[in-house]
């Protein structure tokens, strides 16, 4: 259990409130996922083919994805053979460790790319319909404002009925300005306006909302490319982040989303929302395994502060809290 011991030591330097948020938000996931895992350990006496098939099911049930699961169990089969592991209980730490490694595999930067003081930072939010783009922007605006930043919002979802009003409501709640045009207007034009306005008002951060779109709609994806181009034309280094918002309850289609949005807009990070349901969020592992896009933020609840920086250590701890405590 040295792996978890290290993890625990690392986390002990962090504030308890963050750890609590992750623990709380991942309760459902942990209960169902780790619960199923424990059941599996008790049910099987030997590590055999049937055991591995059952293990595959448990992982697949968490939306980890067939490909990733098959790779993982193949590695475990080899490992079990090599180390001559016969009892499921002896294999358990190995399983947890492998999963954790999938999440923490690289020490990549999960913080947001903020520009130095005095320069405008622009974030573009993209994603399919109903994942929570506008809500996420509202929450992030609130947090950035609390940090003392001058924040502005660009109402780039000119398509969905009520989307502009929704963003304005968030603007009102956090006391930040919203740049908008009429519903149905060209989103690229809104972005142009927003950048000009943010520049002249000396804003620190501009958060750009876009309409949700399914990734197989070519025209809409082209429109998104245009929106991004306009931002780059106005500020060559912008957008400083293109954040793909994913719903944690999404299944394997999330991979297709990450891939297609990635190709169209060079996504730099993922925000995983609605993790507080019973969703297992296993799709995070599939995305980390198949595509190299880091998860930057996670939505762990409905509260304003429940949008949290993604911390792989915290995430793993949240998932395996029970295992870790048992190990001590």
């Amino acid at each position: 259990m040295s792996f978890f011991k290290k993890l625990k030591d690392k986390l002990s330097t962090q504030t308890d409130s963050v750890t609590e948020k992750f623990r709380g938000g991942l309760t459902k996931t942990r209960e169902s996922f780790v619960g199923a895992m424990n059941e599996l350990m008790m049910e099987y006496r030997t590590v055999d083919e049937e055991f591995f098939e059952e293990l595959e099911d448990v992982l697949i049930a968490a939306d980890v994805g067939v490909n990733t699961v098959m790779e993982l169990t193949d590695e475990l089969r080899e490992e079990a053979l090599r180390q001559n592991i016969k009892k499921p209980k002896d294999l358990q730490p190995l399983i947890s460790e492998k999963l954790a490694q999938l999440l923490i595999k690289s020490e990549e930067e999960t913080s947001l790319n903020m520009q130095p003081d005095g320069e405008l930072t622009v974030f573009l939010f993209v994603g399919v319909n109903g994942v929570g783009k506008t809500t996420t922007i509202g929450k992030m605006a609130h947090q950035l404002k609390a940090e003392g930043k001058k924040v502005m919002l660009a109402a780039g979802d000119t398509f969905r009925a009520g989307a502009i009003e929704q963003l304005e409501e968030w603007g009102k709640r956090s006391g930040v300005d919203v740049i908008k045009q009429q519903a149905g207007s060209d989103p690229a034009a809104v972005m142009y306006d927003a950048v000009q306005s943010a520049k002249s008002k000396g804003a620190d951060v501009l958060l750009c909302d876009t309409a949700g779109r399914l990734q197989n709609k070519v025209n809409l994806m082209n429109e998104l490319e245009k929106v991004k181009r306009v931002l780059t034309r106005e500020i060559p280094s912008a957008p400083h982040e293109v954040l793909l918002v994913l719903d944690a309850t999404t299944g394997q289609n999330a991979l297709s989303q990450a891939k297609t949005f990635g190709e169209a807009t060079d996504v730099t990070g993922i925000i995983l929302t609605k993790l507080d349901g019973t969703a297992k969020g296993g799709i995070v592992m599939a995305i980390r395994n198949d595509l190299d896009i880091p998860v930057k933020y996670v939505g762990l609840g409905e509260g304003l502060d429940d949008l949290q920086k993604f911390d792989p250590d915290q995430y793993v701890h949240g998932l395996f809290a029970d295992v870790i405590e048992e190990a001590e």
Partner: protein
Amino acid sequence: MAFESLAERLQGTMDRMKGRGKVNEDDVKDMMREVRLALLEADVNFKVVKQFVKDVRERAVGQEVMESLTPGQQVIKVVNEELTKLMGGEQVKINTASRPPTVVMMVGLQGAGKTTTTGKLALHLRKKHNRKPLMAAADIYRPAAIDQLETLGKQLDMPVFSMGNQVNPVEIATKAVEQAKEDNHDYVIVDTAGRLHVDDNLMDELDQIKAAVNPDEVLLVVDAMTGQDAVNVAETFHERLGITGIVMTKLDGDTRGGAAISVKAVTGQPIKFAGMGEKTDALEPFHPERMASRILGMGDMLTLIEKAQSSVDEEKAKELERKMRTNELTFDDFLEQLSQVKSMGPLDEVLKMMPGANKMKGMKNLQVDDKQIAHIEAIVRSMTKAERDDPSLLNASRKRRIAKGSGRNIQEVNRLIKQFEDMKKMMKQMSGMQKGKKKGGGMKLPFM
């Protein structure tokens, strides 16, 4: 992406068996593994998959597959039949109260598409069933949710009942039904706030709304992209509220939509509608047998044929067929055909419904842009009548004029002319095969 159709998956197993003719039990086992993986990749819940594979295996090990000369196809047939059965077999219509108004309650997770679906359903009821629905805005939590429904109401010219966001949703729903009675609406659609099924307080609120308005239909709105968790969501909503039907949304995406199977399997309630696009009229009755084909990656021929039938003019199709046989096809016919295909809906969706489309070389990643069609139209429209009738007239200077006139470049004009000539050649070859069949004149897609 990693999504292979079941047919492709089984092909691998088939290849290994080549030359042996018949299959043995090991082969069936291999094939069942492929079935299992295909369904899991389509996001069908693993428990549902387990039971399903067991059922299919029993049929497969029996004579049907083992005795067949084309075991792969037999397996697909069996899987398709069982899937259709699992999804309820036939299309089920929306409930109607014996004494109006019929009260419909929309429930589901956040972002599933309840408000949008409320608008679509209201329009569907008015357009297809000649009803007079009232929409009720009972989502007081999400910022601007009421605005969204009111905007939809304005777009559709459909009345919306709202009391702002300071009133209890139970009261809003109750008053909405009273209002509907007063104004002689025959349907009331209550849009409720999205909520997590694990949120007890909010689930209690739904209970109360249900008790207060006694709905004839409780529709659970489910995002077709939902993963394994769809089962828990559907189970909880069903236990708490006793849902009477399901609406799958965002089915116009590229998801396989295995969640449809899962929710049907755990609730036993029929899927009544499918959301097929962003436009307000993009709500269609759900057809289980077509969904089965989609999940298996087999295309949706029935919907395609239906769309073709409803948008193709029989007379014109016959005339076209005659022209193709005699090789008299002109650019005008080409335009005509284009507009017919276009009236069937966005091209990428039309293409997706064609069986085997995903197997054709290059088709898998083919992205059809409706704008390209507009470009083609512009080019053809820039030709003179004489040029359209006789493309051989098109010399370099004429082509330059056409390019200028249509705002496209000369290469595009050349490409189009070449495609047109190729198509004519192909049609000539095909017309020999088509003679026996009278129908299907509108099914040839000129841009392919």
